């Protein structure tokens, strides 16, 4: 029996905590993440078809739980609020005795819960969180992020935008007025200005906005010819819908076709925006069509889609994917380390290189616990065949192009600190 | 020079001249009655005295100081209490609490932060309130919530509240309206006693001539916002103008 760290598993089971938004605007995304978690647990316990276990390069996991202990899980509701998320996480730690927490659908929540896990001495495997801060200013030794970030989105979009729209563009940014919005905008501005684009204006919009007409209306007049919507979720759905209503998609400016860009795509939200997303480019961490369209490099994708699709009847979202992968990565690290001790897990994950989890070769960088892998640039389909097939892959930007030094100014100010095994 | 001096007070409501050049002087320790037809402006005049209304022009002096421009609670602290035409009491509080509150106001002034001591420990206030309730014969109702009192009882309660402040000037707006005859008589007796016993000036509005003539030392008759006559009760009784405008064939 292991000892000397928080919630050392006793008996024949180990409990994981999946903390996702179950109420509020992100409830559907949370539900998709939860599906992926359940699937991952099934596969870890040797049920179902095993999904990516067979393609995962590590091969340490054999479907007999983790270190021979059967995997159990508890779920909680973050409500997409830092406070509620931490309350839920604390109850998992204190009451249910979880050894790892995963999940989240917003950066604020991820940072808050990551901080808590660091203090309590358990591992946090971030789910969907895209802000630079998660592995930048707010990085923590006990926290790991598989999902990509705003900087990588921008770096990936840069070349694609150049090839799509040229070097002589004037950009107008609408930015959700909170940390994630700012980092995304900052990254996009830097990336596009590097291409020679000009930034006309950046207007901050309140997170609580439901109607963006007064922000959209002046855009055409401003002399800009590209509109960046640095919005996510409901904000994105509404601002995009509004922009299309105002005819920006058909408009002409500076003698060019006016363009709209949404830096971070979410399949679920794309569904909410309906036909409006047709032709709009954006970036994704992963897409379920990757392996079919771009081949072997992205192996694992099809196995996951198959398992998920069989069980639930529709393809998984990138949020589901990242949560599934994070669970597997954690289990694998424990298995390889031969211990549940968080410090052992940290050691096993730091600098870990792997493949076969759908993103191609990937590195968990030791300095900031961020994964480095290819980034997918997609575009809304003109004529989607069904509600799950809304985007087409435009290009995949290779890892090198989205890699940055860990002390890059946009990520500066943070310290991983020491790994904390807790009690 | 009276304790209350009202000079040239005017008050308009839109096109209506509710008070026109009212002059009134009430001598200390007397009971001054104001009578007059409905809508003559009697209540309006009282409202001007307690700061509920501000006259358009004119001056109101109490005890040598002007009351105009002061807040209602400041005016009360100067020593003016009023019984309203429609009972104004603390409906959610018990009868006893209703009487205690003015006692506190008298003792502690407009505001005091006594948040830690218990009400029950304030023995002087409790005693005072109890004896006041006894005086108006309501001691057995002390724990009833005031809003469920019958109308006559509400009036008696309000009177008790005002009296417990031992004001210098007590304004009574139809204090016995709706009171049973027996209670009216008791009230007259009570007011007479108080008048005799205490240092108090009263200003009373009543339509019940029995009450007016039992209590008043002087009477002002108000009609359409202006004083018609001011005189002693005996003179008023027989005054033809008053009979015509107000009393009718009533026997007084």
């Amino acid at each position: 029996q292991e000892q000397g760290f928080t919630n050392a598993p006793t008996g024949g089971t180990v409990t994981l905590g999946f903390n996702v938004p179950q109420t509020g605007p992100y409830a559907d995304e949370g539900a998709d993440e939860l599906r992926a978690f359940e699937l991952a647990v099934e596969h870890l316990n040797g049920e179902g078809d095993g999904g990516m276990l067979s393609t995962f390069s590590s091969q340490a996991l054999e479907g007999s739980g983790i270190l021979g202990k059967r995997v159990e899980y508890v779920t909680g509701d973050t409500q997409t609020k830092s406070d509620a998320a931490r309350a839920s996480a604390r109850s998992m730690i204190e009451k249910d005795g979880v050894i790892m927490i995963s999940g989240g659908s917003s950066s604020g929540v991820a940072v808050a819960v990551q901080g808590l896990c660091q203090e309590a001495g358990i591992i946090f495997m971030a789910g969907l969180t895209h802000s630079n801060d998660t592995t930048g200013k707010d990085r923590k030794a006990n926290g790991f992020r598989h999902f990509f970030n705003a900087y990588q989105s921008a770096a990936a979009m840069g070349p694609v935008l150049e090839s799509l729209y040229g070097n002589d563009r004037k950009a107008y940014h609408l930015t959700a007025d909170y940390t994630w919005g700012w980092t995304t905008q900052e990254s996009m501005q830097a990336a596009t200005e590097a291409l020679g684009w000009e930034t006309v204006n950046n207007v901050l919009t309140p997170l609580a906005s439901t109607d963006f007409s007064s922000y959209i209306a002046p855009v055409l007049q401003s002399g800009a010819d590209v509109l960046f919507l640095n919005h996510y979720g409901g904000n994105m759905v509404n601002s995009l819908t509004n922009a299309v209503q105002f005819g920006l998609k058909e408009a002409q400016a500076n003698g060019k076709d006016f363009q709209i860009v949404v830096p971070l795509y979410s399949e679920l939200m794309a569904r909410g925006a309906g036909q409006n997303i047709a032709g709009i480019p954006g970036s994704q961490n992963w897409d379920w069509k990757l392996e079919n369209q771009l081949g072997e490099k992205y192996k694992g994708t099809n196995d996951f889609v198959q398992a998920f699709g069989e069980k639930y009847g529709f393809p998984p979202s990138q949020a589901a994917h990242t949560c599934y992968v994070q669970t597997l990565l954690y289990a694998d690290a424990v298995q390889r380390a031969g211990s549940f001790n968080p410090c052992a897990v940290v050691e096993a994950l730091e600098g870990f290189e792997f493949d076969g989890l759908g993103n191609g070769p990937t590195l968990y960088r030791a300095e900031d616990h961020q994964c480095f892998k290819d980034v997918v640039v997609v575009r809304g389909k003109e004529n989607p065949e069904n509600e799950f097939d809304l985007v087409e892959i435009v290009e995949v930007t290779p890892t090198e192009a989205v890699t940055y030094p860990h002390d890059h100014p946009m990520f500066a100010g943070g310290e991983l600190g020491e790994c904390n095994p807790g009690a | 020079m009276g304790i209350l001096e009202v000079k040239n007070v005017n008050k308009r409501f839109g096109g209506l001249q509710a008070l026109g050049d009212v002059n009134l002087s009430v001598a200390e320790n007397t009971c001054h009655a104001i009578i007059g037809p409905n809508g003559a402006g009697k209540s309006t005049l009282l409202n001007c005295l307690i700061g509920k209304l501000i006259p358009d022009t004119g001056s109101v002096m109490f005890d040598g100081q002007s009351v105009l421009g002061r807040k209602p609670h400041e005016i009360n602290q100067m020593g003016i209490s009023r019984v309203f035409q429609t009972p104004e009491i603390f409906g959610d509080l018990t009868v006893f609490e209703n009487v205690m509150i003015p006692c506190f106001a008298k003792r502690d002034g407009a505001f005091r932060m006594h948040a830690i001591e218990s009400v029950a420990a304030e023995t002087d206030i409790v005693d005072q309130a109890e004896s006041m309730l006894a005086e108006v014969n309501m001691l057995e109702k002390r724990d009833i919530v005031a809003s469920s009192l019958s109308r006559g009882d509400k009036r008696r309660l309000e009177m008790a509240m005002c009296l417990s402040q031992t004001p210098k000037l007590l304004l009574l707006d139809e204090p016995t309206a709706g009171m049973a005859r027996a209670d009216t008589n008791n009230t007259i007796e009570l007011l007479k006693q108080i008048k005799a016993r205490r240092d108090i000036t009263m200003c009373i509005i009543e339509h019940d001539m029995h009450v007016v003539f039992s209590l008043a030392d002087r009477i002002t008759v108000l009609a359409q916002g202006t004083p018609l006559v001011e005189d002693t009760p005996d003179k008023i009784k027989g005054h033809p103008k008053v009979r015509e405008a107000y009393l009718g064939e009533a026997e007084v």
Partner: protein
Amino acid sequence: MDAIFLQILNGLDKGSAYALIALGLTLIFGTLGVVNFAHGALFMIGAFCAVTLSRLLSLSFTTIDETRTDFLGNPMKVETPYAEWLFGPEFGAAIIDWTVPLSILFAIPVMLVVGLVMERGLIKHFYKRPHADQILVTFGLAIVLQEVIKYFYGANPIPTPAPELFRGSFDFGALLGFEANAVIYPIWRAVYFIFSLTVIAAVFGFLQFTTFGMVVRAGMADRETVGLLGIDIDKRFTIMFGIAAAVAGLAGVMYTPINPPNYHMGMDFLVLSFVVVVVGGMGSLPGAVLAGFLLGILESFASTAWAINLVPGINQIIIYLVAIVVLLTRPRGLMGRKGVMEE
């Protein structure tokens, strides 16, 4: 100049949404004196009437198309709406296209029934209860309604486009002699504006030219006495509630093409609509409408780049700032009546 004009236009359509929601709310809250936290839910249910109708119209039967495959490699299922099958592809498609306007006809009876049931079954017992109890019960109801909708429709927004004819925008500025592209205005927003004016006029007409409004106002001030005068006030309150629900619902139906509806859209508008009603002044319909437009336009101006540069964050707080200023300078809001919910 054109920029100012543009923001006024924008403010007007934002304002018409606020005004319409506040109008319904003020009928219940300002007139019947019930603090109705479920009003946002009524707005949301209206919007989901449109969603439901569009689901109904696009109810489909499934055929298997062997030539194509779905994402798992199985034969593709192809869905054909019954409407197209019944009325022929063209007319069927037209009906589906016109879902949102058609939903108005669908929503009116639905919302009336919802309003009546809600009033008879629940609110009726709360007229005499403290406002706090009303808050608790209507808030509970709002949560329940939301959760029911979420159960059936999920948490994601659901796109509900306007008819083809009304999509896109037109160059309003060109009509007025501004340069091209200066004042672009979406067609549906213009439709929404006109629609809201119509509804507002209809409600005003009904309450102004009949004694209904007076009776209900009287009933709110003193139910008992109105009953003594032989008037069955309960019935009128019920009708009033029904109208308010219908107004809220219509506001919701017509709003769906502007922003895709989701189950919590009502909550998003709730606080705002209370602010609008109170700033307008309790018990005043014109006040509510005026405040709706005023706040809409001011919000619109505060969202311009220069305003934000001038005072950072002004767009975040403008509504509340205006509310504070109005309430401090005018004790009862813009046009409030005395004695309504002042205690």
